[in-house]
């Protein structure tokens, strides 16, 4: 059994089937990229994983444990000692009234599992990893978009999620800043983090992913290694999509 198993996940918004029968599995330490045309449910899938939406159907299993089961949706609400999933948003959503360091420390500090000093050391190490040591005491509105996104990544990492999800983490950024953020994701891959990345950066998807899933009409139309999908697409839809994004 794979580390992460998503089994026939379905989500409906007011009668419209946005996701149906989405099944994916991912090994620990691997990176999965989700590609596909706009409005096909990529964001919705990440939101379902992260508990921002409740799927109408399906099961999510992590490390052999059921994290979510549509047959018993209330179970997700039980208190977790650590996070199964983390999410980095397209628009960062940093907390503006807190410094970068405070942003990183806020959520873990509420869990009271470590001392302030330990937490601060851990947060500073995360900031170093994303290259923001100097900005620890700056407020988000003084940072560039790339810096904000890297701060958001550090904030998500501070909760030590098993699987870190990114929803188009660079689509609000210009190329220079995009590179900074993608480099951080590459670094995390080297560390062996399990990640799911929704992206329109095809070059990045090609180069960095262990697994690529093409989402079309609310379901996984094609899934495989990046060679399989980019060099030898099987479906017409994927061929067309790749042509357009070239």
């Amino acid at each position: 059994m794979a580390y992460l198993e998503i089994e026939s996940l379905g989500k409906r918004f007011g009668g419209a089937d946005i996701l149906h029968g989405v099944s994916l599995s991912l090994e620990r330490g691997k990176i999965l990229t989700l590609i596909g045309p706009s409005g096909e449910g990529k964001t919705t899938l990440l939101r379902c994983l992260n508990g921002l939406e409740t799927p109408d159907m399906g099961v999510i299993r992590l490390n052999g444990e059921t994290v979510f089961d549509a047959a018993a949706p209330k179970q997700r609400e039980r208190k977790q000692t650590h996070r199964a999933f983390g999410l980095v948003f397209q628009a960062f959503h940093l907390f503006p009234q807190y410094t970068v360091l405070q942003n990183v420390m806020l959520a873990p500090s509420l869990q009271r599992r470590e001392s302030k000093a330990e937490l601060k050391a851990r947060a500073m190490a995360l900031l170093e990893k994303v290259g923001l040591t100097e900005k620890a005491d700056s407020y988000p509105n003084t940072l560039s978009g790339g810096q904000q996104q890297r701060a958001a990544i550090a904030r998500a990492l501070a909760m030590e999620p098993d699987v870190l999800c990114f929803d188009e983490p660079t689509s609000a950024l210009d190329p220079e800043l995009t590179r900074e953020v993608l480099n951080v994701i590459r670094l995390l891959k080297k560390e062996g983090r399990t990640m799911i990345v929704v992206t329109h950066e095809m070059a990045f998807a090609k180069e960095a992913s262990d697994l690529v899933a093409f989402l079309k009409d609310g379901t996984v139309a094609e899934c495989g290694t990046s060679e399989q999908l980019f060099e030898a697409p099987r479906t017409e839809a994927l061929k067309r999509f790749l042509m357009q994004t070239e």
Partner: protein
Amino acid sequence: MLREVLISLWNGFGQSLQLFCYTLLGGLPLGLLIAFGSMSKIGPIRTFIRGVVWVIRGTPLMLQLIVIYYGPGLLGRGMNLWGGGQGGRMAAAAAAFILNYACYFSEIYRGGIESIPRGQTEAGRVLGMTKAQIFFRIKLKQVYKRILPPMGNEVITLVKDTCLARIIAIYELTYSGQAYIKSDGLLWPLLLTGVFYLAFSGLLSVLLKREEKRLAYFE
């Protein structure tokens, strides 16, 4: 004479200030409760609270003062909810002012809360924060910053509104100035009350501006 007038106005100002403080102490938290009620997921509660706010905001404060002060006594014969004397009148005035201002405050709170982008809540949820943590640790300060200017306006209006309490015979500032027209045929004590009002609202404006500056560091 000036000394006598000043002492009298000072006492009147004391009454006004008391009412002002009671209104803020009671109205600010009650307003937040009403705001939550008006955003409740439970339909009947929401409708009821919004109805009350609509009535209170749509009728004069002076009318509410009179009803709240005299109403209980007229309803239950001999019922004396407010107690006698100046203390009872102040209690009734405070009740009316708190209710009235809480309704205005609640609309400001609600606007402020609803103006915070959804992404803030979602970022908190994804980090495993509870609803209460998200409100108090993330949204409250942002709401505070956003509502400070409109709240400031309400508070300055309140300074001047305290003079309505005279309708139930509270010896507030305006009342104590006007008394000299009848007793001594003097107008200047009344004009002097204006200086009190100006000084007080001026001081509040300065404090509010300072608070706005203090919060300018974000967004």
